Structures are given as C-alpha cells and as structure tokens.
C-alpha cells in the first residue's frame, strides 16, 4: 500500500479506510525523513542534507527567487551531474550595457586536489571557479620541468608565475620570468635566473586557469 490522495473516501465504514490513513501518515513521515529531520525530532522538517536528482532541463526562475539544481555537464573529464545556480534576471550594474540572459552558472566540478601532488620539481594543487573553470596553483623549484595539470582541462587559458627569490645576496632584483603554454594541460616557466652567475635554490609560485 502506498500514499494515496484518494483516501479516505466516503465509504460506509471508517474501518475500511483506517489502513489507508495509517499508510498515508507513515509514508509521509518516511518521505520527510529523507534529507530532512524526521517527524517528532526536535528539529522536524529542517534539512539535514540535500540530495538533488539530476534535471534534464534548466528550470524557469519565477519571480524573486534563485534556483539551485543539478544537471549533466560535459567537461574534458566526461559527463557528470554538477550543481548549477540560476538567478531570476540579469540586471547589469555600473557601465555594463550587455543584454545577457540569466544563463545557468555551474558552481561545482568533479574534484579538488587539496593535499597537493608533489614531484621533484613542483607541487601542485587544484580547485575550480564558478563558470566551469579549473584553477591550479603551486610552487616550482626547477624551471627546466614541464608542469602538468591534472585533471586535464579542455583548454588552458593562462599560466601566471612569480619569483620568490632575488638574484643573489648582492643583487636584490627579482628573477625575471615568463610562462609558455605548451599543450592544453602543460606549461613551462622560463627565467634567466641569475644570468651567468650562481643560482641558489629558488622557487616560483604559479597558478593556471583552464576551461573544464
């Protein structure tokens, strides 16, 4: 027996619908207990977590509200449901005259790398930015190395590096540098370091942004 919105009906005896009434109360309590604090809990009705079933269409935002939902998103890593947000309308501010629509914006990605991947030449971490961008950052101690980004983005937009070292104990100019994107998932830091002078241990901080 499952929840019914047709019972109790005007039957000849309440005894006929007692089971239906009990089932409806029971089923409602069971359903509410999913993602919510259960009936009779001191916080009954509050959310405990929120599981979002994947939607196949973007919801229409109706009036003063915003909608968070899940739908498939295809990235270089494949297709998986991701969290999206849609605001009711785009109202540009300042000098922005763009007539954009309120397209859904992707809030999440499949993975983050919070512990860092350590190689002999660099350490790299990874997160993401709203709008389906991957964000990588870390330190490099050997500019001869090619820095490889994982997960692999579909395209690499930028790679920025900054020296953390001056040229020598008598020349406090920072190292010069440039970055060279080699492929959609690799880049290299270039520097003349201390020219023909001795090179002490050094490091470059870096970050890179790619399209997921």
């Amino acid at each position: 027996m499952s929840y019914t919105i047709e019972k109790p009906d005007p039957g000849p005896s309440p005894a006929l619908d007692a089971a239906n009434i009990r089932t409806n109360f029971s089923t409602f309590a069971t359903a509410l207990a999913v993602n919510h604090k259960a009936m009779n809990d001191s916080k009954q009705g509050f959310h405990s977590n929120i599981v979002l079933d994947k939607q196949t269409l973007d919801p229409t935002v109706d009036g003063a509200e915003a909608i968070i939902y899940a739908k498939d998103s295809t990235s270089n890593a494949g297709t998986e449901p991701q969290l999206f947000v849609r605001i009711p309308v785009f109202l540009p501010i300042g000098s922005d005259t763009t007539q954009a629509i309120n397209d859904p914006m992707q809030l999440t990605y499949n993975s983050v790398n919070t512990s860092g991947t350590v190689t002999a030449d660099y350490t790299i971490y990874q997160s993401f930015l709203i709008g389906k961008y991957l964000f990588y950052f870390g330190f490099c101690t050997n500019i001869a190395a090619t820095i490889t980004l994982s997960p692999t983005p579909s395209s690499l937009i930028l790679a920025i590096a900054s020296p953390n070292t001056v040229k020598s104990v008598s020349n406090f100019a920072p190292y010069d540098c440039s970055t060279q994107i080699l492929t959609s998932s690799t880049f290299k830091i270039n520097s003349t370091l201390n020219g023909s002078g001795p090179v002490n241990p050094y490091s470059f901080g870096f970050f890179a942004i790619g399209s997921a």
Partner: protein
Amino acid sequence: MTTPIYDPGVPERPSDSYATSQPELLANFISLYQAFLKNHEPISGANQGVHTILELLQQTGDAQTDLNEISFYTKNVDGQTTQVFVRINNNGTAYQLTNYQIYSLNQVANQTSYFTVLPGKFLVYFGSFTSLTNNILNLNPPIAKNIVGLDFTPIGTTPNYKPVVNPIKEANGEINKLQVTSANLQNTGLGTAPACYYFVVVNI
C-alpha cells in the same frame, strides 16, 4: 488539481462523525502531497523525499543559524537581483555566494578576456593580451569599484619583468581600464608591455 486548505486541527472533535472528518482528512492528505511535491520527488515515488531543485524564495533579511547549522538563502541585492547567500553556523558571517551573471564576453582586438565571480562580491578578470592599444587593458564587464589584487606574467620563451599596472579611474568612480606598461629598469620612460597573461581581482 486544486490544493485544498491544510487544516492541522482536524478531526475537530472526538465526537465528529466520520462523515464530517472524512473529507477533512482527505483534504489534508491532498495538501500534504501537493506541498511536498514542491522541490521534492513525490511522496510515493521511487526517490521519495529527495529533492528535484532547490527553489529559494527571496528573503527580506539574513537567515538565522543555530549551532551546527549552515543556511543557504536568497536576498535582493541593491541594483542587482535576487542572489544566493550563505550564513555560517551560529548566526555567523553571512556572505554573498553569487555576485553577477557570468556571460560570454565580446572580445576586443589583441585581448582575450574571461571573468568569473568569487563569493563575497569579488569579480575576477583573467585572460591574455598581445599588444595593447595605448597600453590600455580593458576590464570587461566594466563594473569594478576597486582593484584588490592582480598579477601579470609575460607570455612565451623570453623571460621578462612583470609589467607596471596603474588603474584608471572613471568619472563615476569605476575602474574599467588598466594602464599596463613595461617595467623599465633603465628609467628611459614607459614602454609597451610585453604580451602577458593577466589575473585581476576587484570589488563590485
């Protein structure tokens, strides 16, 4: 189906006949079902209780949070629209999670531009440029109030020093352009910046 009014007070009296309470009970069951159907899979469905979407109706103030709670809600932002906010545990910090509509930019010559938002009313401009006209880097969309962080790196195999960057304030107080020139260790004047990747964080 019209949703009947939910009445938590029925059956009203123990002495009510079943003929009286039957339609009241039926109305309540219908109301419960219809109300729960908002943002949730149906009560009797395979995924009963699981959410479909999370429709956050605009609130007039910040949501209250007790210990061990966190709240997602929406609020109107002056000059913008309904945006998503987060409030941390125990009525802690409330901050804006969504800031601005992300959209595809119209690109300008010699500059490839993207932008995204960070929680807390920050916006990030990023991309690359080759040769800038009049040493001007455009910040698009043009809505920056303050520059709060930036970094540039020359592109390619030839190392160089990072360029010198100066915000250009408009009459309305916005900073929609940056003057970007080469670092010049010989003091021979400002030169054209080399092609660079750029990353600029602003308040909006």
